[in-house]
């Protein structure tokens, strides 16, 4: 749908809008902008470990953009 494309806000705005909520979910350590396996811009949520409850609360899409989950592990100062 052409109209859909025009309506879609920039991914940076979408990420910003949902970031605080996503970061507050148990085990979420990061939210960033990357690409899905097809190369499309995607919002990527990083988890410290597999967490079924948190994962169930993360939808597959966010305002028209793919929302992916990655197990990045705890991020530590090195």
């Amino acid at each position, binding site marked *: 749908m052409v109209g859909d494309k025009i309506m879609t806000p920039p991914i940076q705005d979408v990420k910003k809008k949902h970031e605080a909520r996503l970061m507050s979910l148990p085990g979420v350590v990061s939210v960033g*902008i990357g690409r899905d396996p097809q190369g499309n811009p995607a919002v990527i949520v990083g988890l410290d470990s597999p967490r079924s409850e948190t994962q169930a609360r993360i939808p597959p899409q966010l305002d028209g953009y793919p929302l992916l989950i990655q197990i990045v592990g705890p991020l530590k100062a090195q």
Partner: protein
Amino acid sequence: MEKELFNLKGVLQENRNQLLARTNVVATGIGFKASVGKKTPILSIICSVVQKLPSSKLSPREMIPSTIGGLPTDVVQTGRLRAFQSHTARYRPAPGGISIGHKDITAGTLGCLVKKGGEFFILSNNHVLANSNAAQVGDPILQPGPYDGGLIANDHIANLEAFVPISFTGGASGCSTARGVADFLNSVARVLGSDTRLRAITTQAEDNLVDAAIARPLNPADVKDEILEIGPLSGVGSGTLGMAIKKSGRTTGLTTGEIQQVDVTSTVQYGDNKTALFTDQLMAGAMSQGGDSGSAVLDTQNRLIGLLFAGSENSTIINRIEHVFSALGVSR
């Protein structure tokens, strides 16, 4: 195979010296022959060369025969071989990519040199040079870092010049004690009219952009404006999604990766149950381990694009160099 290997070893021993005498040959060994880029099950004498050249460009004396003592040979291009360079040793002058640390920490990485007021300073992380806010400006910085045997008596290379305080969110206090102490000391310094001791401390909002600090070399001749295993920087760049990057660090040496995420917000754990929230970070795959913190991150053209400071088993978190430069008031 055992017998074949034994035979090969004998033939190699007999011919090694005359093979290594060729100017292009840097190593000889035994291995499976490759044909059209694919490994074959044929054992052969392998000659590693600086550059593979067509036979038309080689004099008969430089040419490697296709068989030696009835055994096949293979030629592979390895380039010039250099001795493994230690990243934890003491270096004077000290380049980027090697062990460094505040006297009270373990060890991190000396990133690279940056300029402020026409002088060169050592760039690394706050948690490497300023002990995660706990240090005092002027504290001794050791190269190598204490964990790698650095001692104040012998290895004092620089003094902490300035750091960007990290705003911590976790822990019992809920806010950073160290920051409170720094503020208190700053107010004392103001009262005492001592404008030098803590003046260089700048502040950043609750969301951190950088984990960065600079140190002033005791002697400018003790530091070198290049990076071990990489060489000189060619300028400054900006990290973008998909960009190929590299770093040279104390623990894992020279590694490469790719920027997989930008505009990253992440929580990072520091010791003692402390956590800090960082925004506008770059994320790459696995390319670092503990001790690599402070590494300068470069693009393929050796432009400085970031400062490595955190990571996990499969991810690396990098400050944008733009934020590092503006927070510290430094440049290249």
